[in-house]
């Protein structure tokens, strides 16, 4: 041991640098591997906590039975199902029942309920909890605070309730007002359904009172809530499996009443989390692999440099008779000095790093660990740190322990590798390149590192390691090219007369090992790749949000009863730059495939629709022909109303009676959309005046109605009907706000379209202005009907010009310029389109199939073929730069509207805790690579200084100035560092170009739509490279300065050269 310590004292600086490097490397590796282990579980816990109540609970509902005993038995049977918990996870079960037969004075449902353990889930704001009361007195109830405010009741007041069963009053006495503690919690599912349907409550009454007065016809529920902190990983799978079994097993086999329904979303949650965890793990594997690569190589380099220092000594000792075992013991002793600090400090340092990461993630709602991370680290960290330290020790001891060769043989191998060694290295390089190409092609084929059918996805080892293999392979190739670069440098330096430059370039060209350069290339490549993947991921989230939204803000009506917002009102909102109306549908492309139909105002699409430039050619919407508008009679601009008189005239013989449906006019609202305005339903031979409001600036484009002949089935008289049926609109006028009237006449271009039942004989129809007259005869005993329409739809019948996605082209086997008829959903007629262009993906539409048409043209087509007035179902808004939040707030203030906000979506995607965790890991890998490379370079610099001292002394003796020798060192370092950094950048960017987009997956493990596009962020890729270049140059300068000082202070004296 004394010899070990004395040797160590002589090389203390180098050993200290090696020990520090080993410690930092071990700590970083330990922290990272633990982080990669903890993050998916943490994400699972966060996802469970944030999951909807329906997904993390199990709900059982059945009829309450006829009496208290029924209820007790049912309650016992349900609770028995959860005696052992759910899947091994403890479960709290709460029950409750609500009556469906109680009604408030205004007709709304009063949700009278009893709820188990209500006092544990709500705070009494006023009054007391209800207790049983004698018959004849109003039942006591505690009401929610919001309901009390809505009804205007307080403690001591009464709520007037009628029992629908008996039609008798069943008032409630308000004795308490409560506030739910966790309004979104699973407990409140017990009475959620009737409240969601519009009822007020739950109005909580005492259980005994409920059983006595409300049990009949009421519903009893139980909600089973698994302990959230245990719902993760395999436990969630077990819980989900048991919950699914309960849901799918027949009620009787479970010992439950036949009216039982079990519902749960735990299986969906488990499936979603399973996939999300896979996606997270696959995302973490990349930085973990890259960091392990760098860390492993740094340790290997440090070990190699130390062994280099001892190479001569070991050869000498071997020559003097030292056995392998003796050398191994010496090396082991020295290795201990390097690895013991690493082994002892690695875990605690890693724990500190993890705590810092935990603090960062906690601000985003993600706790890395359910328990505090121990100060000295967890046992897993110790295991990793000790393993890493032992690997370093093996690397240090192995060269000393192997069979020795002659000094000359070793030097020859160092300075002139044998053909076999060259071929061997070339073989390894080739194998790496082949593997990298294979991995890359597989990654492109599968579109990501996860493979397998849905429900059985798994991480493919080759695909997930593809980037790391790519880095190794391209690094190997670049190192092959480096000698050419340095030889080029030699040729340039030889032409100059500076010995310092030439010496520096010689050293760079002929260094016996490429360790530090390789470390530099790897570190810069890892940092560049990590930066590119992170930036690509971030941009993809923005692109996905923009694609999903389709516009800055996309509005639809929350329910069908909400009136459509006026375009002018939306355009007037602060921050809104433009409004585009849209309608949506589904088209059948083939037997298996559908496509989303999006009808938009194409004249505004370029301004409003957010479609990434690479998905559609510039000016694609300009290719759409101008919108087709139906022709008609333009009403005066100030028109507010249409007035006139309807007459449905019937004359003829027969027993049938003629009826008319409502007579409607169709108006173009001024933007190409049609509005159907009913004028009224005339009775036969009775004039019906009408006065209806119409939009200002409209054009009258059509008139339609239908008639039917009905027979009395008990009157078997023959003859049917023969005569004329006519609709006449007379004195049609447009009236403005001041009451000024303008006569309106029908356009001469209008044509009559009639469709009739098969047994109806319609003779020639005659149209005179707004008079439509049919000669009708029928001799059947069935009701027969016909429909007519007056309009000019000749051009509207033509195929609708459309932009389609490649999936539609493939599904229909068509190309641009072709026409194709696509079946439509919702019972409407097929849509014939003419393909005028292709866009790669349709914003706001899920799936690959998409068809975009012009909304007015589409509306005209629908009117022409089906007499439907297609209108807008969505309003897409573009916001002004810098005013999006204002616009979003203004839109949110409009009641009854559902809003998809691009910015909010972007924030949600970017703030996803798991995504942030993976980003953190990528940046940490980049930083760690830079730090480790810096340490590795420092160790190498010190080793170089020691190695070169002899050469420097010789050169100084021969007449080289200390400054020239220092400059030579700087030139060497600058050339190697420059080439290394440049190679690293090229390697990292090349691998990123080839693979980064394929690594971006959605939480559902699918390729994102639109596809991820590579981003090479200048700062994230350039900064580590610049930092390492500066570190390398600085270290070179430090070594040069030290060497210069040593050269000045100590010439190589005779007798001291070694």
């Amino acid at each position, binding site marked *: 041991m004394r010899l070990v310590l004395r040797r160590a004292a002589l090389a203390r600086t180098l050993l200290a640098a090696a020990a520090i490097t080993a410690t930092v490397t071990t700590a970083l590796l330990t922290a990272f591997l633990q982080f990669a282990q903890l993050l998916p579980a943490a994400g699972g816990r966060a996802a469970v906590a944030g999951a909807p109540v329906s997904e993390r609970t199990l709900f059982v509902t059945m009829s309450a039975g006829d009496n208290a005993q029924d209820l007790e038995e049912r309650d016992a049977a349900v609770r028995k199902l959860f005696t052992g918990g759910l899947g091994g996870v403890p479960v709290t079960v709460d029950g409750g029942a609500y009556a469906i037969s109680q009604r408030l004075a205004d007709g709304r449902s009063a949700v009278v309920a009893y709820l188990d353990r209500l006092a544990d889930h709500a705070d009494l704001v006023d009054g007391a909890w209800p207790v049983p009361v004698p018959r004849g007195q109003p039942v006591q109830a505690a009401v929610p605070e919001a309901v009390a405010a809505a009804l205007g009741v307080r403690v001591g007041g009464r709520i007037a309730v009628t029992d629908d069963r008996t039609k008798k009053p069943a008032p409630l006495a308000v004795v308490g007002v409560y506030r739910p503690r966790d309004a979104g919690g699973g407990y409140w599912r017990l009475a959620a359904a009737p409240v969601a349907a519009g009822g007020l409550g739950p109005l909580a009454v005492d259980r005994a009172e409920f059983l006595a007065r409300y049990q009949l016809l009421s519903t009893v529920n139980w909600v089973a809530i698994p302990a959230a902190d245990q719902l993760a990983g395999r436990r969630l799978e077990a819980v989900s499996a048991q919950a699914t079994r309960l849901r799918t097993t027949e009620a009787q086999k479970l010992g439950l009443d036949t009216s039982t329904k079990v519902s749960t979303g735990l299986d969906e949650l488990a499936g979603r989390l399973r996939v999300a965890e896979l996606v997270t793990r696959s995302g973490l594997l990349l930085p973990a692999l890259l960091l392990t690569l760098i860390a492993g190589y740094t340790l290997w380099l440090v070990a190699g440099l130390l062994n280099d220092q001892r190479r001569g000594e070991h050869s000498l000792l071997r020559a003097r008779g030292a056995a392998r075992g003796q050398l191994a013991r010496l090396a082991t002793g020295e290795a201990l000095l390097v690895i013991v600090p690493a082994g002892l400090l690695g875990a605690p340092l890693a724990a500190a790093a993890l705590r810092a990461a935990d603090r960062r993630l906690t601000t985003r709602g993600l706790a890395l660990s359910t328990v505090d991370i121990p100060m000295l680290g967890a046992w897993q960290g110790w295991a990793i740190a000790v393993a890493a330290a032992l690997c370093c020790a093996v690397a240090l001891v192995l060269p000393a322990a192997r069979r020795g060769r002659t000094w000359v043989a070793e030097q020859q191998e160092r300075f002139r590798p044998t053909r076999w060694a060259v071929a061997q290295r070339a073989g390894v390089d080739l194998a790496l390149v082949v593997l990298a190409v294979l991995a890359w092609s597989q990654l492109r084929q599968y579109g990501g590192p996860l493979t397998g059918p849905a429900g059985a996805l798994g991480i493919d080892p080759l695909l997930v390691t593809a980037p790391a293999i790519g880095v190794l392979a391209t690094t190997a190739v670049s190192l092959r090219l480096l000698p050419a670069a340095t030889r080029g440098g030699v040729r340039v330096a030889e032409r100059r007369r500076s010995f310092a430059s030439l010496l520096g370039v010689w050293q760079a060209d002929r260094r016996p090992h490429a360790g530090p350069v390789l470390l530099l290339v790897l570190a810069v490549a890892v940092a560049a790749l990590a930066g590119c993947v992170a930036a690509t991921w971030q941009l993809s989230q923005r692109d996905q949000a923009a694609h999903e939204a389709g516009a800055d803000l996309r509005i639809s009506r929350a329910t069908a009863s909400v009136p459509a917002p006026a375009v002018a009102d939306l355009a007037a909102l602060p921050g809104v730059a433009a409004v585009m109306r849209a309608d949506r549908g589904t088209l059948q492309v083939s037997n298996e495939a559908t496509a989303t139909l999006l009808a938009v105002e194409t004249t505004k699409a370029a301004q409003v629709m957010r479609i990434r430039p690479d998905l559609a050619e510039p000016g694609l919407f300009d290719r759409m022909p101008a919108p087709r508008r139906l022709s008609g009679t333009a009403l005066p601009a100030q028109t507010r109303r249409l007035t006139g008189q309807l007459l449905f005239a019937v004359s003829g013989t027969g027993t049938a009676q003629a009826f008319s449906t409502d007579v409607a006019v169709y108006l173009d609202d001024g933007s190409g959309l049609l509005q159907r305005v009913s004028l009224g339903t005339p009775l036969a031979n009775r004039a019906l005046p009408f006065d209806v409001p119409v939009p200002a600036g409209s054009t009258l484009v059509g008139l339609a109605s239908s008639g039917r002949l009905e027979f009395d089935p008990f009157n078997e008289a023959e003859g049917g009907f023969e005569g004329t049926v006519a609709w006449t609109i007379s004195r049609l006028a447009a009236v403005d706000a001041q009451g000024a009237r303008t006569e309106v006449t029908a356009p001469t271009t209008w044509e009559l379209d009639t469709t009739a039942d098969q047994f109806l004989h319609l003779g020639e129809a005659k149209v005179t202005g707004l008079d439509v007259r049919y000669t009708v005869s029928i001799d059947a005993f069935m009701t027969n009907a016909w429909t007519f329409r007056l309009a000019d739809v000749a051009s509207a019948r033509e195929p609708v010009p459309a932009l389609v996605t490649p999936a539609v082209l493939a599904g229909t086997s068509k190309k641009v310029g072709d026409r194709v008829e696509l079946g439509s959903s919702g019972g409407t007629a097929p849509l014939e389109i003419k393909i005028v262009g292709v866009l790669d993906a349709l914003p706001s539409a899920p799936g690959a199939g998409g068809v975009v048409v012009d909304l007015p043209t589409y509306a005209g087509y629908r009117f022409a073929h089906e007499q439907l007035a297609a209108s807008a179902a969505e309003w897409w808004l573009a916001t002004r730069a810098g005013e999006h939040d204002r616009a979003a707030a203004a839109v949110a203030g409009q009641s009854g509207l559902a809003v998809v906000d691009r910015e909010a979506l972007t924030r949600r995607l970017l703030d996803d805790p798991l995504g942030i965790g993976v980003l953190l890991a990528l940046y940490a890998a980049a930083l760690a690579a830079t730090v480790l490379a810096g340490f590795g370079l420092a160790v190498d610099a010190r080793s170089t200084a020691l190695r070169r001292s002899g*050469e420097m002394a010789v050169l100084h*003796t021969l007449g080289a100035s200390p400054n020239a020798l220092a400059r030579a060192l700087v030139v060497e370092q600058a050339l190697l560092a420059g080439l290394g950094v440049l190679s690293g950048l090229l390697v990292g960017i090349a691998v990123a170009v080839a693979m980064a987009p394929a690594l971006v997956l959605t939480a559902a493990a699918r390729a994102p739509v639109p596809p991820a596009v590579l981003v090479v962020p200048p700062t994230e890729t350039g900064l580590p490279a610049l930092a390492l270049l500066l570190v390398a140059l600085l270290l070179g300068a430090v070594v040069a300065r030290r060497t210069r000082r040593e050269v000045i202070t100590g010439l190589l004296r*005779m007798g001291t050269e070694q």
Partner: protein
Amino acid sequence: MTPLVRVDRVSRVFGHGAREVHAVREVSLVAAPGEVLAIRGRSGAGKTTLLNLIGGLDRPTAGSVHVAGHELTAADERRLRRLRRDTIGFVFQSFGLIPILSAAENVGVPMRLARRRARERDERVSMLLELVGLGAHARQRPYELSGGQQQRVAIARALANEPKLLIADEPTGQLDSETGRQIMDLIRAVVLARGTTAIVATHDAALLDLADRVLVLRDGRIADPVPAAG
């Protein structure tokens, strides 16, 4: 004839006080141009120290050293460096070759330091390597050469800038006797051919007959000079 080298009462003391070591004590000597002067003595006699003083690699504690008319003791570092580059050639016991450079490149180093033109340098390198019998080994690296070959390269390098003085410290110390003899023959031949003065430190008595004059150093002092055989 004006001596090329004149050493006047030169002393060199290392350390202080009780740890003082008098490596060289008041040594005076001269060496004429074209003379091979051998300095002999046991290990620790002060041979290497004396050579360092003569070569300007060390400064004496007392006395003066003149080489080719330049007083080394008064010269600054720059002047000494120029002298080492242009006037004095060194041959080390362990050869002192730069391992990453070929034989030709090693020989060319002093000429590059002297900024000689490339063609002139290349021609001279070829000539010197031929002179030492290693013309065919120009591209080989030091570790591909035998000890004797490496020392020959070192000698060629020492002669690169046509020095007036060649200082060799135990040039045959790491070589076998036959190879050592060859090296000494080479040094002698160079001296004769070019008029270079050579001061060689050696403890190998078998080589002393190749010197013109032998000085014996004992405990840092010149002992009775021994005339060279032949």
